[in-house]
């Protein structure tokens, strides 16, 4: 099957982009469905992706402009014909918004979009579906590599991903298509290069703190410093900014770098195994470790961790609002069994790298240098 093409959806997204890059680098024939964006055509976006990843394609990918949440994915007749005979699909396209008011849009992409993709490939023999570890919803404790039936969800994204797993399971069962589901945890950039295509999740609190660091420093050094004073911020002798903030400290967060995810997913694809696989880090991190990395590398001090020593004030209110949203991920009470994944990865010597201080800095430096993605045109 390796000489036959694989359709990759969401190929200019974060996970889909890196996976598409890896498969193209390996010489796989690929068909990429891509949404045109702004003035960039689908093809231009793929060219930008390959350039960003420094990949020269042995087989030029076939690029098909598509919008998966539209009926028939908005495909031309010719493109419909191309997809009809595709034997393998790696479905990575997804809407990752947590916002309640974007629920319909999230459902349209993650559920109807999935159905549209499946319908477009009637002769598909293997379907690889990118889900999320957080499709487990509000459950606590050990989450197994099986379909999950949680009583509720933290946000519409989690719900849509859970429902999508069930949908694709039913669809594949009916059509007798082999199905493999990947459930990664929070994904960040490449641990060895720092590269990333998206800067959400782990990046957001860092970005927010750096935004405040720079704004407050400007206020103190170039203006009266009143705003900084009203927020309880000050400047230290070494020029770092003291932001008196407390982050909730209990629980852990599960982070995987994109390079590990790519290795793990491709290894599982190569194994021919079907079923559900958690792509997670066996060693979870803590908010305290992240706060330490931020203080160490980004001239910020005053960050504390603890559930009972919360600061008052506007900055804390803001961080609390943010943490309300991300608490389930940053103070996670779920543990993800990755028994099935390890069975494949361990013999191959594939391990999830740690988020060391150096890796953290590498990834965040890349984010800062690329203006948090503004200078990445993919």
């Amino acid at each position, binding site marked *: 099957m390796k000489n036959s093409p694989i359709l990759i959806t969401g190929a200019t997204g974060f996970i889909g982009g890196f996976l598409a890059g890896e498969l193209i680098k390996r010489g796989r024939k690929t068909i990429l469905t891509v949404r045109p964006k702004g003035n960039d055509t689908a093809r231009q976006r793929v060219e930008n992706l390959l350039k960003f990843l420094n990949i020269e394609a042995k087989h030029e990918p076939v690029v098909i402009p598509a919008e998966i949440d539209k009926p028939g994915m908005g495909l031309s007749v010719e493109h419909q014909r191309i997809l009809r005979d595709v034997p393998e699909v790696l479905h990575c396209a997804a809407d990752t*918004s*947590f*916002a*309640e*008011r974007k629920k319909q849009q999230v459902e349209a992409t993650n559920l109807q979009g999935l159905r549209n993709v499946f319908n477009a490939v009637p002769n598909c023999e293997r379907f690889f579906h990118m889900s999320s570890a957080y499709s487990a919803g509000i459950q606590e404790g050990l989450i197994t590599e099986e379909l999950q039936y949680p009583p509720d969800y933290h*946000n519409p994204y989690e719900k849509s991903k859970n429902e999508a797993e069930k949908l694709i399971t039913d669809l594949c069962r009916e059509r007798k298509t082999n199905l493999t589901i990947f459930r990664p945890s929070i994904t960040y950039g490449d641990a060895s290069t720092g590269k990333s295509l998206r*800067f*959400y999740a782990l990046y*957001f609190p860092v*970005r*927010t703190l750096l*935004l*405040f660091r720079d*704004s*407050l420093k*400007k*206020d103190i050094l170039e203006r009266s410093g009143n*705003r*900084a004073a*009203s*927020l309880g911020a000050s400047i230290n002798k070494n020029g770092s900014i003291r932001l008196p903030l407390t982050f909730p400290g209990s629980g852990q967060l599960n982070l995987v770098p994109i390079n590990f995810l790519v290795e793990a997913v491709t290894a599982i694809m190569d194994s021919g195994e079907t079923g559900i696989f958690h792509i997670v880090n066996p060693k979870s991190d803590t908010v305290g470790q992240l706060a330490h990395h931020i203080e160490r590398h980004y001239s910020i001090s005053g960050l504390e961790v603890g559930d009972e020593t919360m600061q008052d*004030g*506007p*900055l804390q*209110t*803001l961080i609390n*609002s*943010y943490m*309300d*949203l991300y608490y389930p991920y940053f103070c996670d009470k779920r543990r993800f069994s990755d028994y099935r994944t390890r069975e494949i990865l361990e013999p191959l010597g594939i391990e999830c790298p740690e988020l060391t201080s150096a890796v953290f800095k590498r990834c965040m430096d890349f984010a800062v240098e690329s*203006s*948090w993605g*503004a200078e990445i045109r993919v």
Partner: protein
Amino acid sequence: MSDFNHNKQSSNNTSEALHTARRCRHYAMCKIDFLGTGVCPSGRKNHFVSFYPQGMMDITAAVLENRIPVTTGLLEVANECTLCGLCDTQCHFVTELRPFGVFQTLKSYLDDYLQSNDPVEVPSDEFLNKLRSITGEKHATNDPAHLIAYANDPAPISSETMPGYVVVPGDTQQVSEIIKLCLREGVEYTVRGNGSSVMGFVLGSGLIIDTTRMNKMEFDTSNRAVTIGAGISAFELQKETAARGYRVNAAEPSALYCANIMCSGIFSLFSSSYGTAADNLIDAEFVSAEGDVFALSQRDAPNLYGFSKNEPPIQGICTQAVVRLHPVTDDESAIAVPFSDMQSAVGYAEKLNRRDVGLGIGVLGGEYLSTFISPTSELAETLRNVFHKELGIEYLVVVLGNKHHLEAARDMAPVVLEQEVMRALILGIPSLGEEGIIQFLRGMEGKAKPYEILAKPDMLPIIETILDPSPEQLSDAVDSDLKSFYAKLYNRHELTDMLWLNTFRIVSSRMGRDGHIVAFILYVPLDNIPQVEEIHKGFQEVAHTNGVRGEFGFLTPIDQGAMGVFEWDLYLDHTNPEEVGKMQKAMEKTGAMLDRFSQKDPRVLWIRDVFNKGFARKEAYLYHGASFSKV
């Protein structure tokens, strides 16, 4: 012509000038001192619209297109323009148009023309002589240069209609004599203020009577009243009233107050407490269709307070009115309450008004508000995106009131954007468009909408820190030669003060910045908010199917929440025939749609049915179903 103070090197070329001149919206903001910078000295001195920038734009377009000859009147207009540049900042503030270059081009064109030609002297005639004998020589004209300034209107239902004469009477007696003259001579007349002409109603081929010189304004604070002549604009009146510690119920600043009452009754956000139509009227003086003078307070005066939907309005010219002054207290301010859906926003406004909370209440569309508070079209687009996409704000209920009103309004609001937060947002609009800020806002959104977080009581220092709002930041967005002007302007507190902005309404004319506006105003009962939403969706459908841009404007609850004044706007480039055609169809469909709603619920009343009946008691038409006459 050596007295033309122009600089040919910096002149716009003819096509640019023509393009700009044609796009004048006729909003008449160049006739009032709304920025505190002064008013076109030529217009103030000479009265005819032709001497104001608005008229000169029409004249320039007409002369460059050879629609009018170069007359002595035209030369006088051009000579009187000192190229002081006041109009450039005023017009840019509203529309982003720059008339200065247009007038440079006009002067340059005339300069060249006069090298080998003489201006045309338009002879007087018997009727004009008679007019002049009433008003004085310089206040009546038949010169095409002056006439053309009264011949056009950006309304899509109008076409150029050149009047025969224009006269600017100075008082009621002169108006009376002019009407009698017209009756004797069989000359049709049309009355208009020197204000805007944007709805196609004040064009005529006979005589135009321009009331601009009737600028009497006498305050009687012991009776909380002010007497105003027909030439007084809403802005001038509000300014003088405010200086005396009072407020009037006034609408568009450039509209002439008497004409505005006559047209439809005045509604503003303050109508929530001050009412509309005859509510603010103490007395009014008219010249009848026969030329006789009467006051509404006379026992034998025509009953303009009554209302009949199907009968034409009583003919007459309002020459002066006595209107109520409302007290102002030193604890007044404003808040804005954001909502993501119309039902909740209108429901909140109704709830406030039912309880008499607030001096003024308005549900504003996020897009409408973005346009108002942004000094450029580009910034308005930025703000629109941020409000809609990132903050989830679809509607803002603006509440104006004293501290007791505002405390009650806060109590009833889900979340509140305080005046200082709004100031920071206005002065920080450019920062709001930055990717970093957008991502910051986006990252906060979950179950709570981002605006709910921003509206938390202690968020102001955060907002100020990340936006770094300042007049300088805001002024960076305008043309480089206007930056210092805008920075100075926005250093003035009132330019970001919601109460002041709603009292003087100087930014609402910006809604025409991206194109001319056709406003549909109706009264809707507020005991049926789903019907309001249905009407809103009906407008959206009409706009969409006819390929016309349209937006919800505002809704103001009145009469203790019984009714709402509802505005929905359609936009067009009035210089584009294709868009005019689409708009005409859309207007037709809208009319049919509104008729359907009125048939279903007779309390839904389109303002068309109140047109020129603005002196009627609002009770006569809002609750006519309960009256003896059942009109």
